[in-house]
């Protein structure tokens, strides 16, 4: 198992398919010993649990025990195709994928290990936000929106329009507090295109994107911001993780800079937002 440091979290990851992880997770390698592990295996048999599940949802059975939780996903013929287990302290996480029942093993390995890592991230007080995060002048700007709104496209316009802009994470950057400021970190889990960097930068602003017919920046009331954060932040199933997520959202709402931006699908959409975000600095110049 190789060792990685992702958003400051020391983790050992075992994966078997290189489709998504190759040239991606390796930039997070470290010599430091892991505190947590995610172990993904492709196997030819997964034993169904004998015990009754704590609750079920469609073809998913959730088994809660005192020291661990297990999610079992069944095929239509009642064979186990996926089993995900984690200890309650998230130290040990394990994923079993059935080689015949899972269609795209590489994709499933990437998606499910990402899901487990995001839970661990929340356990460690790092909030995954559905956003494309860019870096400009050693600060992070997050474009948050639902899938299909065009956050990656907008981020790519910033790259084209302004020299030196790079993508930190194109799908789920992690926000956390360190030394009294919000930081944004990349991770190897960054959507279908796997665009990410192993970097951490202070948060400049969160921009909630909506498609529009004009490029207009709106301020958000506290209640409007709350709705947007609740929509775009990861909503975990675990009560403790939800408390951590809400703590971070509360702090962001009170302390971070955020705006709503209706945006056209054109590179001209960069300048009006840039002017608002960097207005004070430009005045000082």
């Amino acid at each position, binding site marked *: 198992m190789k060792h990685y440091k992702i958003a400051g979290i020391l983790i050992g990851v075992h994966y078997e398919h290189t489709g998504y992880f190759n040239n991606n997770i390796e930039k997070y390698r470290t010599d430091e010993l892991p505190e947590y592990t995610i172990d993904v295996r492709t196997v030819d048999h997964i034993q169904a649990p004998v015990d009754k599940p*704590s*609750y079920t949802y469609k073809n998913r059975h959730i088994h809660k025990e005192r020291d661990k939780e297990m999610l079992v996903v069944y095929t239509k013929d009642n064979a186990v195709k996926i089993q995900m287990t984690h200890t309650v302290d998230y130290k040990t996480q394990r994923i079993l994928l059935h080689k015949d029942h899972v269609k795209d093993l590489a994709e499933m390995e990437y998606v499910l290990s990402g899901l487990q890592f995001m839970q661990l991230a929340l356990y460690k007080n790092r909030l995954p936000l559905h956003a494309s995060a860019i870096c400009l002048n050693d600060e992070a700007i997050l474009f948050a929106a639902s899938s299909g709104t065009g956050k990656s496209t907008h981020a790519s316009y910033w790259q084209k329009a302004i020299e030196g802009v790079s993508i930190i994470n194109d799908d789920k950057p992690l926000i956390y507090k360190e030394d009294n400021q919000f930081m944004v970190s990349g991770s190897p889990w960054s959507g279908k295109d796997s665009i990410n960097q192993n970097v951490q930068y202070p948060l400049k602003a969160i921009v909630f994107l909506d498609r529009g017919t004009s490029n207009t920046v709106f301020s958000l009331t506290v209640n409007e911001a*709350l709705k947007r954060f609740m929509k775009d932040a990861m909503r975990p*199933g675990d*009560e403790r993780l939800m*408390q951590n997520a*809400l703590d971070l959202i*509360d702090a962001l*709402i009170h302390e971070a800079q955020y705006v709503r931006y209706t945006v056209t699908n054109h590179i001209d959409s960069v300048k009006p937002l840039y002017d608002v975000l960097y207005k004070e600095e430009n005045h000082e110049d």
Partner: protein
Amino acid sequence: MKIKEGYVLRSVADQHLVVPTGEEGVNFNGIITLNDSGKLLFERLKKGAEPKALVALLMETYDVSKETANEDVKAFIETLKSKNIIVL
């Protein structure tokens, strides 16, 4: 009566939110917002309480008449019942 397991009550940005997790999150994907008296009642119901005790709690905290407190508690419990988040 008692609030079901899995509901997180947290004040965020001056709003009192009730967010479902676990099995309840699967059944109900929304968020409930409460006012101050709703928060007070919800916190008591998390531990378990009968309507009589809730009425007394409202009267004691907000200096309202028994009649008003009765109506408020009845309406609050009906709301929780309609959202299926309370065990009688």
